[in-house]
């Protein structure tokens, strides 16, 4: 099963060895960029510890224990994640009191199990709050039902506020002997140093581009161009790549091409029409995608000059050529524009008006490709 996780050989070899030699530490911290398989690895690791299979191919994914883990319904698994639920919403066993919340919770789990690449949005702001740590401590104090080791997975541990993190410290330092605590985070630096020092840290890395390409081609049956493009956009984030492959992001791609055509014609009127789409902040994600596409186009322009085979948008080479011909100082403007677009992405994250951003980009592009 571990083979399903791509590009994390280092982490997996450590964990495998720990299982084989039965030297499982009390607390692990899986850290690394988003969407590279930290949670999945944590789950598989928990399965491997408790797998009933006789041979070395642990986890088998077939035995009853593995099945329960895969459904996140194993009685000895405590899964803590950032959620909008507060103190009054749960009882001491960690069950949600109201049916409505229970439904949201089930929906979340369903999404996590069936379509893990999809983002799930709660309606209110999320955090890991103290009651969940209390529940976790309570669970750990009980003896294991059927598992060899009780497993706690805390996803996005950086979402613990200071109170929660502090409440966790004592448990993290000296959990019961038959327990494993796994924290995952993409921002290890925002964790308390006292938390960091109590865990064994396992690094995760961005998935190499060619592995993403391969995965997309094999499991999602994408063609070359698409696989290449999604691999580039996702930037080592497998989750994002799958998301793109699943949802198909052709709309944004056409929008990008439209945008570039408008830039080449310097047609202000058409741009105004184009811009009106991005009037509301709802389209923020779409605009972010558009910008990442633009970055790819830009790098395509410099590839066009030096190394045309590496281009992503092979099917639109005419447009790339046009762009290239309108300004041939590729070495000078491409890095600058990319830096500029990166800055715009950050501003977009900071809730700057999307319309202003797209206008700024348009102006900058018009100046470059006139």
């Amino acid at each position, binding site marked *: 099963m571990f083979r399903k996780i791509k590009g994390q050989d*280092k982490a997996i070899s450590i964990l495998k060895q720990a299982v084989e030699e039965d030297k499982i530490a009390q607390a692990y911290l899986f850290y690394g960029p988003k969407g590279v398989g930290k949670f999945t690895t944590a789950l598989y690791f928990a399965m491997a510890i408790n797998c009933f299979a006789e041979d070395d191919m642990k986890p088998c994914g077939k035995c009853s224990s593995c099945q329960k883990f895969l459904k996140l319904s194993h009685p000895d698994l405590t899964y803590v994640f950032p959620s909008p639920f507060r103190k009054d919403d749960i009882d001491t066993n960690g069950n949600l009191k109201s049916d409505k919340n229970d439904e949201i919770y089930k929906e979340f789990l369903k999404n996590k199990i069936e379509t893990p690449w999809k983002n799930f949005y709660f309606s209110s702001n999320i955090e890991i709050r103290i009651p969940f740590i209390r529940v976790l401590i309570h669970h750990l104090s009980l003896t294991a039902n059927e598992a060899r080791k009780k497993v706690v997975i805390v996803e996005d541990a950086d979402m613990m506020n200071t109170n929660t993190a502090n409440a966790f410290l004592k448990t993290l330092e000296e959990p019961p002997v038959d327990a494993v605590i796994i924290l995952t985070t993409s921002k290890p630096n925002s964790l308390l*140093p006292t938390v960091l020092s109590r865990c064994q840290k396992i690094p995760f890395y961005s998935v190499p581009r060619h592995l993403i390409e391969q995965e997309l081609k094999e499991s999602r049956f994408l063609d070359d161009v698409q696989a290449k493009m999604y691999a580039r956009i996702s930037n080592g984030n497998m989750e994002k790549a799958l998301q793109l492959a699943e949802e198909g992001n052709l709309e944004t791609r056409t929008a990008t091409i439209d945008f570039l055509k408008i830039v080449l014609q310097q047609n202000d009127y058409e741009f105004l029409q184009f811009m009106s789409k991005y009037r509301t902040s709802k389209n923020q994600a779409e605009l972010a995608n558009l910008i990442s596409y633009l970055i790819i186009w830009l790098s395509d322009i410099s590839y066009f000059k030096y190394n045309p085979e590496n281009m992503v948008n092979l099917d639109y080479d005419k447009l790339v050529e046009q762009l290239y011909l309108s300004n041939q100082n590729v070495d000078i403007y491409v890095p600058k524009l990319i830096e500029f677009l990166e800055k715009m992405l950050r501003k977009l994250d900071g809730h700057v008006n999307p319309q202003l951003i797209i206008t700024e980009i348009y102006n900058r592009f018009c100046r470059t490709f006139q």
Partner: protein
Amino acid sequence: MSYLVLARKYRPQTFDEVYSQDHITEVLKNTIELDRTAHAYLFTGPRGVGKTSLARIFAKSLNCLNGGPTVTPCNTCQNCTEITQGISADVMEIDGASNTSVDDIRNLQKELLYSTTNSNFKIYIIDEVHMLSKNAFNALLKTLEEPPESVIFIFATTEPHKVLPTIVSRCQRFDFKRIPIPDIIDRLHSICQQEGIEAEEEALFTIAKKADGSMRDALSLMDQLLAYGHDKITLENVLSVFGIVHNDVYLEIMQALANKDASSILKQLHSILEKGNDIQEFINGLMDFIRNMLLLKMNLEVHEIPSSLLESLQKLNKKFSENELLYAISLLIKTKTDIKTSSNPILIAEMSFVKLAKLAQMTSIDKLLQQVSQNKNVDVSRLAQQPASQNVKKLHKQTQQIKKQIQEPEPVAKPNISKLTKEIYLENKPALVNKLRKEKMVVANYFSQAKLANIRRNTVSLIPQSRLGYDMLNESKQLIEAVLNQHFNLSLRLEVQKVEKAKSAIANPKLEDIKKEEPGIAEFMEATDSIIT
């Protein structure tokens, strides 16, 4: 028994095993020997230096059945083993961070009334005490000031500033130090011996350095190393596991920088990243390295670099000026913050390294000033040095002259012509502008900026620079015509042509334009990446 991490397995169990906190252990030992134990202690200090461990040892020493209170707890009697396991009835270890409310304190106070079972003291260890709520702290105050006899409180925290001053004043406070590197190495050595692990001296040094004064961190790092399945701890292993880049690599990068070799720097960067090193860690390391170079340059002693490296560093140092090194560090700092927020950190790193490679092309401001002054025949540097009053005087003189020029335009002989041609127009343009200026300043300006398109018969057609210019000139057409007619003694008509599409080359000068006019400034702009807005 199931596997225990090193940090727990080798938790100190006697006073002697607590490393490099002698200033505290001595005092505690003395209080036991002299029988002067206080009723409340506050242990503060960074993570992993032995606060909780020492609290437990102290509890054991006081309650040991073999002659307690004693400075050498036996660790075998019932009380000692119970305390180690955390199940003693008389030594309560409370998690201050999950029992934060007043109710928790009230429960504690109720328990205080009962006497001890079979030990000398009833000891409450409250860990992470800084997380108690304000109310909880206040509820504790009275008890803390005058607890029942034979009750001892030990508070441990990493953040003493969050503890109320009224609490602190009721406790004996002990500040734990960060553990120095040699002491950590000592401890690691002894553990390696007990575990039967071979370890290189330099490897242990690197671990100790990375642990940053915390023993627990050092042991966690050891654990991590052993988890990779290496039976021997070598420097190479340590570097590869923790993604620390070897000093030689930094040396090569700096060398490449000195040679302005951007491509080899990028190659190095990629090979580092391919090995799975963290980019942040790498930049931190490089910054450290440059810092060492800078310190060497200032003739300070740097203890952190091995002597083998010293010589090559000194050699390298000659190729850089202090300013360049400072610039490199500040650029790296900026890169670091950028990387944190960027979705494409590698790209940002690449860009900055290319920029760094341009370091050598950069000219210092002094040189630039010189260049500018040579081009313009104005000695900027001297101008800057002159006292301000002189400058003002000079300026005053100049303005006077200019004023004079404006006030008394050289009388221009009226050309006696029958037909206006382009040449004549251009020749007389300054005089025309001057005349217009007296009439209407704004119009004159737009007029002087406007280009002559052509002159057909008696129609002069102008192309203004901007839309605004078009409007202005059109508005005061009659005025301009009057001036023209008076000057040339002809009856001329003015035609203002629509503005051409704004030439952005002028509105937004490109690098090439500047290059043509001011090569020095263009170079400066390229090197610093500045934009004209």
